[in-house]
């Protein structure tokens, strides 16, 4: 039914989250990724906002449905409810603010606890362009990433550097996990859906075609 009206052709749909402290540039990252532009008048996010984009990862079309959350920890009780069934997440901090870096542990715990067990996380040190004001070194962050089994990139939503890569890497890793069988897209709450029009039906209706007027000769 109308669900199909909202559908399109892709092989998989991944639900992504963008999380991290307020003012780290989550919405800007998303905007840069989708529009390839820097959003210089963005307001802080209330509740949740959305973006989606189809990317081609190794020949597979993957639709990313990205949930951009409010950063302030006071809203965690609210944003947490969006975590359910996310396949991947961008964990964003601001390289010019140690505070945002220090908060990563909490975000990490939340993501691992509330999203799917196998959530694929990539750590993004945003505002790479503000290198002069840097408070968190690349080395330190990459050590943190290693310890916590995260991928890691420094990004700049302003210049667009590494923004697409962050999303791509995350998606690629999920795909690899699917291929290796580590992730089962059919498991509930995996955050992954088949995108192909036919396969997509999986998740909701088991629809068979009514015997159509032309073919039914009886």
């Amino acid at each position, binding site marked *: 039914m109308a669900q199909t009206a909202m559908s399109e*052709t892709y092989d998989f749909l991944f639900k992504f989250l963008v999380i991290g402290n307020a003012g780290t540039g989550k919405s800007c990252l998303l905007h840069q990724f989708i529009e390839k532009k820097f959003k210089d008048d963005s307001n802080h996010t209330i509740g949740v906002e959305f973006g989606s984009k189809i990317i081609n990862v190794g020949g597979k079309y993957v639709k990313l449905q990205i949930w951009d959350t409010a950063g302030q920890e006071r809203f965690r009780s609210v944003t947490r409810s969006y975590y359910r069934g996310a396949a991947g997440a961008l964990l964003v901090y601001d390289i010019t603010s140690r505070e945002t870096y220090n908060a990563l542990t909490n975000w990490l715990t939340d993501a691992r606890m509330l999203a799917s067990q196998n959530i694929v996380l990539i750590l993004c040190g945003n505002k790479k362009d503000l290198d002069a004001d840097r408070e968190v070194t690349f080395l330190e962050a990459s050590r943190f990433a290693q310890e916590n089994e995260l991928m890691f990139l420094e990004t700049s939503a302003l210049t667009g550097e590494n923004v697409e890569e962050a999303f791509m890497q995350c998606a690629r890793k999920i795909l690899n996990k699917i291929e290796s069988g580590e992730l089962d897209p059919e498991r509930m709450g995996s955050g992954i859906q088949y995108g192909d029009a036919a396969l997509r039906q999986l998740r909701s209706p088991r*629809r068979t075609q*009514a015997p*159509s007027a032309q073919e039914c000769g009886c």
Partner: protein
Amino acid sequence: MASVPAEAETRQRLLRTVKKEVKQIMEEAVTRKFVHEDSSHIISFCAAVEACVLHGLRRRAAGFLRSNKIAALFMKVGKGFPPAEELSRKVQELEQLIESARNQIQGLQENVRKLPKLPNLSPLAIKHLWIRTALFGRVLDKIVHYLVENSSKYYEKEALLMDPVDGPILASLLVGPCALEYTKMKTADHFWTDPSADELVQRHRIHSSHLRQDSPTKRPALCIQKRHSSGSMDDRPSISARDYVESLHQDSRATLLYGKNNVLVQPRDDMEAVPGYLSLHQTADVMTLKWTPNQLMNGSVGDLDYEKSVYWDYAVTIRLEEIVYLHCHQQVDSGGTVVLVSQDGIQRPPFRFPKGGHLLQFLSCLENGLLPHGQLDPPLWSQRGKGKVFPKLRKRSPQGSSESTSSDKEDDEATDYVFRIIYPGTQSEFVPQDLMDVSMNNLPPLWQPSPRKSSCSSCSQSGSADGGSTNGCNHERAPLKLLCDNMKYQILSRAFYGWLAYCRHLSTVRTHLSALVNHMIVSPDLPCDAGQGLTASIWEKYIQDSTTYPEQELLRLIYYGGVQPEIRRAVWPFLLGHYQFGMTEMERKEVDEQIHACYAQTMSEWLGCEAIVRQRERESHAAALAKCSSGASLDSHLHRMLHRDSTISNESSQSCSSGRQNLRLQSDSSSSTQVFESVDEVEQTEAEGRSEEKHPKIPNGNPANGTCSPDSGHPSSHNFSSGLSEHSEPSLSTEDSVLDAQRSLPAVFRPGDSSVEDGQSSEATTSRDEAPREELAVQDSLESDLLANESLEEFMSIPGSLDVALPEKDGAVMDGWPGEADKPSRADSEDNLSEEPEMESLFPALASLAVTSSANNEASPVSSSGVTYSPELLDLYTVNLHRIEKDVQRCDRSYWYFTAANLEKLRNIMCSYIWQHIEIGYVQGMCDLLAPLLVILDDEALAFSCFTELMKRMNQNFPHGGAMDTHFANMRSLIQILDSELFELMHQNGDYTHFYFCYRWFLLDFKRELVYDDVFSVWETIWAAKHVSSAHYVLFIALALVEVYRDIILENNMDFTDIIKFFNEMAERHNAKQILQLARDLVHKVQILIENK
């Protein structure tokens, strides 16, 4: 022969491939419940079958010249085998279509449109067109079976199909795939992306034009299930055309029980009967009978016309629960006719089935579908061998037979039946008999003839057009009498239970909703039309003489018409409660003065605090930078710094605690603050400069403290988060006890309790200037103590008098307040005057500190009235300051009002508010609420006061409040009652019954959903509504927003994600006027519901 084993192997290989493909298709079918026509499995399956069928094919059989051997073979088979013949006809048609489509690609679009829609076939699919079509037509197995049976005619002897074992195996392998359903729902050329909210709105506009015009505003207040009681014409599909067609398909919720094409229905009296597709669908609780004209099924009307086609008017949808009787008429020459009669006695247009037992089949499907709750009365009979048959006992009406005799003279075959659909055990069966009897007497005699008459017309339609139909029907009197009686019972019981249900429903409504609206309905027209709103002239009059208009009348005007933009600045303070209606000008001035003073005081307080914060930040930032540049080697240094932080907090808190004891010991001193100020000014700059060089030298590092990081922005906070912090060293215990001591302090001094008196200004300046020193200089100099004591005498009187003089503040209860800063700062300033002090002396050992601080603290309680800051307060404020600044910077940057200067104002107000409510702290969204107020009022103090008033209500919506869940629950009830259809959808999609899509709406009073001008008018309506219609007016605006787009939401069957996305994209594009109007209507609707008990 050497080739024999080789041939056998080839056969085995071929067969294996087919087996594999069949297995895959069947697996797909099992896991997916259906197979897509474009599935790659089908293509490989076709290839495998083709290889088998062609294996060992005689050249003659395939035709020498034909390139497509399968085609030749199948056509040949077709000569002796009807299914194959049918197949070749179909495939050839298809081939023609493909051909013509190819030719017509250039131009001639018109013709293409008239052709039946060309299936989307990939080149691969076309290659196997024959086998594909046979498979989808479910004849492939039959044809192969035929080929196996007659294999000698077509095949060489080594052929797979000739093999006595393998041949039949192949044929039976194919039975499975041929029994499957294949779908061609969406294919690769439907390459559309998520339609944007805009697109959805557009689409809706396009196809809603021909739909039922029940826009939400026109809907009845209570959507008790609509009864389609007026025949087919009203049963137009309410969903979009495409969805209608798709709804004919089976899905997880609806099972297709029966489907038959070419069932004739005469949609209008002046029309020929039209063939169409009759289908019976079952969902969990309802069975629906649908009839769709072939024209729609084929999609043969051009795409554009398709949606607007008149045939939509003819399509029939009947809910079987409304149907009571089925009249079946059978004629030998034509198949049979079914007339459905609903509870209200209205007949649906007759369905004429084609010949050949379809009527019976339909009835048996129907009977099966009715189980277990319902059944046909009389039930169909099961007869061995023949399956279901018409019940033999049923007495044929003599007249009915005579009618059929007249048409075809075959008494035995033509049979008329009346079936009743009964639901044993349901309530309607237990209507008290006496009630029925009593009311039956009241029934007008009219009841009898009218159904009969309509039934006659059905007879005339079903019978082969005989002119004297009216006479011809008299014979049916006996069953009709029964029918009419039954109908009466039904109608009465329905009416009774309907009424009962309505009553119950209403009582639920009342209990649920009566709290949401004011019970007094205020008219938009009395005493005058309020559409113009509150105009400047009316306001003028009111301000001159507040008796000209009562407050209620002004509010009514605002509620229905808004405030004229020019006078918003004047009116809003009244609406928000800054002024009370009826205040004289003098009184208002007084309020303003108070507010201004209070605001200035608050500002001075937090500005002082901010100075300290800034100072700290510079340090920690420098440290972080240093750390960055030199890496981990600096860690030890950081640790030392950290330690210093905690020492300071230790000191200050200790002095606080001891300060309490000394509270009353303050005595006269006479030095003036001016002295300090002058000193301070000098000192401050110095102190800042010094701080940079200070920390490397800090002695006495307590290494255990090093775990917390100073650069987190709120360095010493860790010391006080006792449960969570990593500290386990002794210092913790002291801190804890200190905290306890602080808690027990009487809450005399609050940040908000500031003076309006003369001393205030000086006090403010002191606090600002001294602030940095609180941290830097912890000095135990008796001299300074003396000085401090003297100076503070002046402040002594302030706090006490304040508590009386000031209006109560609901501000923070900052227990730890009485600080020691005043004294050390003095000490510090002393130091400064007398050259740079030794670093060591600034950080004395704890032991000595204890002594000195107690001495110092003689001064502190007094100074604390507005000057000193406890460490927690500092930390809290630091955190909040960061948040505020982050958000203020990016608050509505694109709106003209927010220049740098005005953003500064925004920041000041926000900081002041937070300072007074530091226990709540800044939460994202508060900025959004303040911004429109500032735009309108354009005055810091006034906006501050109004914002404080506004936040009294809005605070509850923030995460620390808890009103949000109540809002969601109320929304739920409202939608359930006012739009059950939408509620149903939400319920089905489960996920968004928790209404998170409304989150931002309620949190910000729709500020982000609307453009500024609309925010203004919506906000003032909300404020006025509290007194005019509902204190929960926001709920109704939210409901209006949902209702405006309900059709789109329904049409697109939006789930949780879709709807959040939709409303996010629709932000600032709503029609605020329309929404406000609708919201008012909705309030009114609920008021009426509650009023009409």
